[in-house]
């Protein structure tokens, strides 16, 4: 258990707190670009954890996955999103239906809820409680973002945050799935983001606004 391993274990424990921070910040964010930046920070923290975990288990596969996550979630997807935001030249505000203070309160509430929700399952799922709570918090915040934010792009970001949450849950409980599955999941996510970007452009062309709550033509 060299110096490096202990550092990794400590990093693992504290990263839960960092994740909560990003959750609160994303809830408070006003502009889409800050949300994208916060998303890449979250992915960075998750990559750090993957490296820490794989160090502890000496699994070379872990490093491959970490590299993959780093390249896709930390670099590729935010880059694509930024290009879309520039391309759109649409207003960059988040246009949320709840004011930022309310959002922060809700996010905090969600974090507390995730702690209570996770307590009965700690024994069952394994992995330490803080990380599991963080994962559930990410999922709930992702959901909250998608439901409260009106901008199409914000729904994409919300979806990504939710996916991050699930990915984290997978990570903490199972110390890594078979490699092919991990690659498949991340590749799917990337393709998903491309498609959503394409659809965002289509919405702008046909509706020349990006407000998702106005898309109400198909009813009944």
């Amino acid at each position, binding site marked *: 258990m060299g110096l490096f391993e202990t550092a990794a274990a400590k990093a693992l424990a504290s990263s839960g707190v960092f994740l909560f921070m990003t959750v609160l910040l994303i809830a408070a964010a006003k502009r889409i670009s800050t949300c994208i930046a916060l998303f890449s920070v979250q992915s960075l923290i998750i990559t750090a954890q993957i490296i820490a975990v794989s160090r502890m288990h000496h699994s070379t596969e872990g490093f491959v996955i970490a590299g993959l996550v780093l390249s896709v979630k930390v670099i590729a997807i935010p880059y694509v999103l930024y290009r879309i935001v520039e391309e759109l030249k649409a207003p960059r505000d988040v246009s949320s239906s709840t004011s930022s203070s309310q959002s922060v309160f809700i996010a905090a509430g969600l974090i507390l809820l995730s702690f209570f929700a996770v307590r009965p399952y700690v024994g*069952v799922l394994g992995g330490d409680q803080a990380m599991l709570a963080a994962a559930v918090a990410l999922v709930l915040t992702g959901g909250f973002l998608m439901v409260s934010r009106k901008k199409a792009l914000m729904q994409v970001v919300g979806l990504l945050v939710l996916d991050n949450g699930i990915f984290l849950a997978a990570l903490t*409980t*199972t110390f890594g799935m078979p490699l092919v*599955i991990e690659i498949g999941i991340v590749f799917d996510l990337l393709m998903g983001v491309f*498609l959503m970007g394409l*659809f965002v452009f289509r919405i702008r062309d046909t509706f020349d606004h990006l407000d998702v709550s106005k*898309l109400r033509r198909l009813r009944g």
Partner: protein
Amino acid sequence: MVLLFPLFLPLAGALLVFLCRNPRVVVRVALTAGTLELAAIGIAVYSIHSWGVLQVGRYLCADGLTSFFLISLGLISALVLVYSSGYLRHVPEGRFSSLRWFYGLVFLFLFTMVAVYLSANLGMMWIFVEATTLASALLVGFYNTEGAVEAGWKYLIVCTVGIAFALFGTIAFYLAAVKGGVSPQSALDWGTLMAAAPGLVGGRELLKLAFVFVAVGYGTKVGFVPMHSWLPDAHAEAPSPISALLSAVLLNCAMYALLRFDAITSRAIGSGFSHTLLLIFGGVSLAVASLLMIVQRDLKRLLAYSSIEHMGIVAIGIGLGGTLGLLGALLHTFNHSIAKTLLFFTAGNVRENFGTLRMERIRGMALSLPWAGGALIVGGLAITGMPPFGLFVSELVILTAAFSTAHYFIAVLMLAAISVVFGALLHHFQHMLMGKSDDVPAQPALQASWLVVMGVCALCLVVLGVHIPAAFKAVLRGAMAVLQP
């Protein structure tokens, strides 16, 4: 080796279609690829039937259940390709809306669905189910109208969220397997999971949690009621051949995944929990969909709700369990896909000739469009479960299962819903068929290919309704054997 053909043929088809420019060539290439694909699937099914489980490498495997679902996939995709060759003469402009893109995406869509059926690993299966959503999102938004874009967007977002939960469910299964002592590398392989399932009884709480997430996740793709909202929009706005593919094959794909997970959970912790869950979802979907069908104004939305209703019936079939329930459910997926394809093709014809799908403005189909009118009658009778057609047989089997296992509430609910649906459909179709309409073109456009396709559907329905051929019965028995070892 035999499995590789059906898998990679659509992929090759897609590439070929993307390469050639001239639309007529595209159609011809598509048709040849389609027939080749059908042949490949036929050979695959035959070989599965004769040699049992086929395993290719670590990630591809096909057993009785796969062959059963492959048949409906092959048949419907061939019919859709033949139908769309005559259907898509006028193609709206727009970046992704050319004929080349249409057939390319269709073949990608087929590739992902075949991959779902052939994947041995539950993780792989999740990846390809997610891929089906991505492939079909563009197809839903093909027409580039306001409605199509909105439907495409909703379809993409809601299904991806749903599927994300399914991912967590799969992971929980993986965790339960690893805890239950299965080697991490092959913890998600279906074969090993089924074999080790009785040993997993220790993780009862975890398996129940996993099944809840899987049910909500894949339930979104199947269209169970609380998560069904994307389905009417997607199926109504997509071009008719695509909505036929979505309704008839994609829903079966998601149901196939649910079947796999249900088989594992019921072997591990007994079918109590998973079957109650499926019964709840099935009953609620059946009730809500049948009520909503009464007040529908658009023909394809009506058909979309009828898909939700029939998926509810299939879920009830699975939820009832036992040989009768499962047999009914499997048979119902097959019958439903054929009847729904026939109806969506008719809806395509109606849209071609009447220019609209709003049922108030469609009058006098029986006179002006005798063939489409006839198909509507046959489809309508079939989808409401009238005797000469296959759906009656499967609904009867499911109802017998319900009554024999004393699930009286579900049986009564199902009977009530079916009668409400009968009333609703009869009301709508009768309104469209009768009366006299003025805005129908003098010479209705009628494609020979449409006639052939609809004829095949009607023929299959009647054959399955009257007497199930021996070969089909053998495949069905093979599928049942897989689910109830």
